[in-house]
């Protein structure tokens, strides 16, 4: 165990997996020098053959991953910021998500698409999006969103070993340093969430960067005598339905905290699942704390207005409890 921030933990997972399996290759813009730190040192350790600097060409990058995977490699396509997933979206939506199905399961597509997502840095609308709602709707790709350095390591290793296209999306802020296991087989299974706080009054389901805020909200609520069952969702496709339904059975109330815009967000999808499958356990409406339905503005004052914060979560839950 050692305390690490998000980017070094991602780097560690990449180093371990590239060492373990020489079919793992990685490419991206400035992958060698590494803009954000995920890929630092990989080129030195594994060579320019397996770790490639690409031109700026997201369309071919996303498509190339599908072809290389079909031909036996395990490519990691590094797309820098989540917004550039849109730039390379055609091959993602029309090829990666459908090729296996259309060809009756003839191919395995072990691709990892990775990017940094979300706002909070005054990077404005084209560098701050949460693109997973569109990805979740494709059906043919898995989506994972770690919340801290430990889950970042465990989920990335699972994503690289998975035989399906997996989107590996991490928060830009990266959160605070956490204990990260040294074990080079430390895997967090895709499709499993983690209950990170136990309580009986309300369930909070949080995603990615929102988990840290939800944890802070949980402490505030505890101080007021409100017990929170906090679930760090980790995987959006597939979703760990058992864990969230079991928690709802216990608490009867659910608040989902999601940094996506509300329309067709992960939060709205989860609330649909819960009302379908666990309606009779609900004591109050399912609530969603999400980004307001606008692009992310540059000004910090405006940006913090549209992105959920700890107070938004606390207020939402207090209102919910007052309803009863």
């Amino acid at each position, binding site marked *: 165990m050692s305390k690490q921030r998000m980017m070094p933990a991602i780097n560690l997972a990449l180093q371990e997996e590239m060492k373990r399996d020489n079919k793992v290759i990685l490419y991206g*813009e*400035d992958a*060698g*020098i*590494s*803009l*954000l*730190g995920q890929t*630092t*040192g990989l080129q030195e350790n594994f060579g320019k053959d397996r770790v490639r*600097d*690409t*031109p*700026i*060409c*997201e*369309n*071919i990058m996303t498509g190339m991953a599908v072809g290389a995977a079909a031909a036996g490699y395990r490519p990691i396509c590094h797309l820098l910021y989540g*917004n*550039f997933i849109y*730039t390379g979206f055609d091959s993602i939506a029309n090829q990666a998500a459908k090729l296996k199905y259309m060809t009756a399961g003839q191919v395995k597509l072990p691709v990892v698409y990775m990017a940094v997502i979300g706002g909070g*840095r*005054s*990077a*404005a*609308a*084209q*560098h701050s999006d949460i693109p997973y709602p569109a990805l979740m709707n494709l059906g043919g790709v898995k989506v994972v969103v770690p919340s801290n350095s430990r889950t970042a390591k465990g989920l990335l290793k699972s994503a690289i070993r998975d035989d399906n296209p997996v989107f590996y999306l991490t928060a830009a802020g990266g959160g605070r340093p956490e204990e990260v296991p040294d074990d080079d087989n430390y895997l967090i299974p895709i499709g499993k969430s983690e209950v990170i706080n136990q309580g009986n009054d309300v369930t909070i389901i949080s995603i990615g960067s929102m988990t840290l805020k939800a944890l802070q909200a949980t402490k505030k609520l505890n101080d007021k005598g409100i017990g929170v069952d906090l679930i760090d969702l980790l995987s959006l496709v597939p979703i760990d339905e058992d864990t969230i339904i079991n928690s709802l059975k216990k608490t009867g109330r659910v608040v989902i905290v999601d940094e996506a815009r509300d329309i067709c967000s992960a939060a709205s999808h989860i609330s649909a699942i819960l009302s379908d499958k666990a309606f009779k356990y609900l004591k109050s409406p399912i609530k969603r704390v999400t980004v*307001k*339905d*606008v*692009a992310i*503005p*540059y*000004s*910090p*004052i*405006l940006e913090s*207005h*549209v992105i959920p914060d700890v107070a938004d979560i606390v207020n939402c839950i207090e209102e919910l409890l007052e309803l009863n």
Partner: protein
Amino acid sequence: MMSIKNYVNNLSDEDLKRIYKKMLMIRKCEEHLGEATKNGAFPGAVHLYIGQEAIAVPLCDQLNDSDWISSTHRGHGHFIAKGGDVKKMMAEIYGKSTGICGGKGGSMHVADFKKGIIGANGVVAGGMGLAVGAALASKMDGNGAVSIIFFGDGAANQGVLMEAMNICSLWNLPMIFMCENNQYSEFTHTSEVTSGKIIDRAEPFGIPKYEVDGNNAVDVWQAAYQAVQRGRNDEGPSFIEAHTYRQRGHVEFEYTFLSRTYRDQNEVELWKTNEKDPILRLESYFIEHNKYSGDDIEKIQKEVQDEVDDAVKFAIESPEPDISSAMVHMIER
């Protein structure tokens, strides 16, 4: 690299002096931004245009408000060159309500549609389609307006460039492809990510091409003149590749997060010399040819600096945006 001596009749001293002053305006704004960002004076990151001023200004000097430009993440220079308001740009970068986008866009999204500035862009080559669309509109209006896409050597590797060149040539659109080859795409040298010569990409589409020294304002002006005239006369698109150099980092502060260097400091210094720097070269030309004295230049420098200082003061003293402004301007309901 040659000095500025190919003086030509269609470019007067007055033109060149006006161009010089605009270039200086860009330089001094950006020098301020480079300094101020160190103290966290404004939110967000800035990509500075210092060293490339002789590209945007001589081209935009030949344009009107009805002509269109679409630019890049390194867009302050294009904005100022096309007549954007310096105060409003500065206030935008400071995230203030008086900014040209009300503080909602910031450095990477400065735009002023009334002035034909479609805007900077956070997506590399993201402005390409927009410029083509504006060229199509001008063509259909038949008003002789032209449309310019400014893009980097890095952006030249996006496939959309091919799509744009094809359609502009096919439909004979009044489009100017202005590639600013500053040798780097973020932290990677162009040669490592680019095959062939960028300018040659225009050839198979039958688009006339002009390769110029992008640090020589007169060279750029001449090529731009040809391209703009072609557009105005409905003769179709042109492609200019201007060779230049980015004197600052890709983004300010890059060495606080990069794990190693990516270019030689001597190389950077070379481009700041009298022989290479586009502003110093113009100044040498003015002095050598007795167009300006050293005192004249100092006086102009001061005028421009005062204007920049005013803009900064305006930005600092302006109010923050009202929270309600976050919730408007998406779609009309």
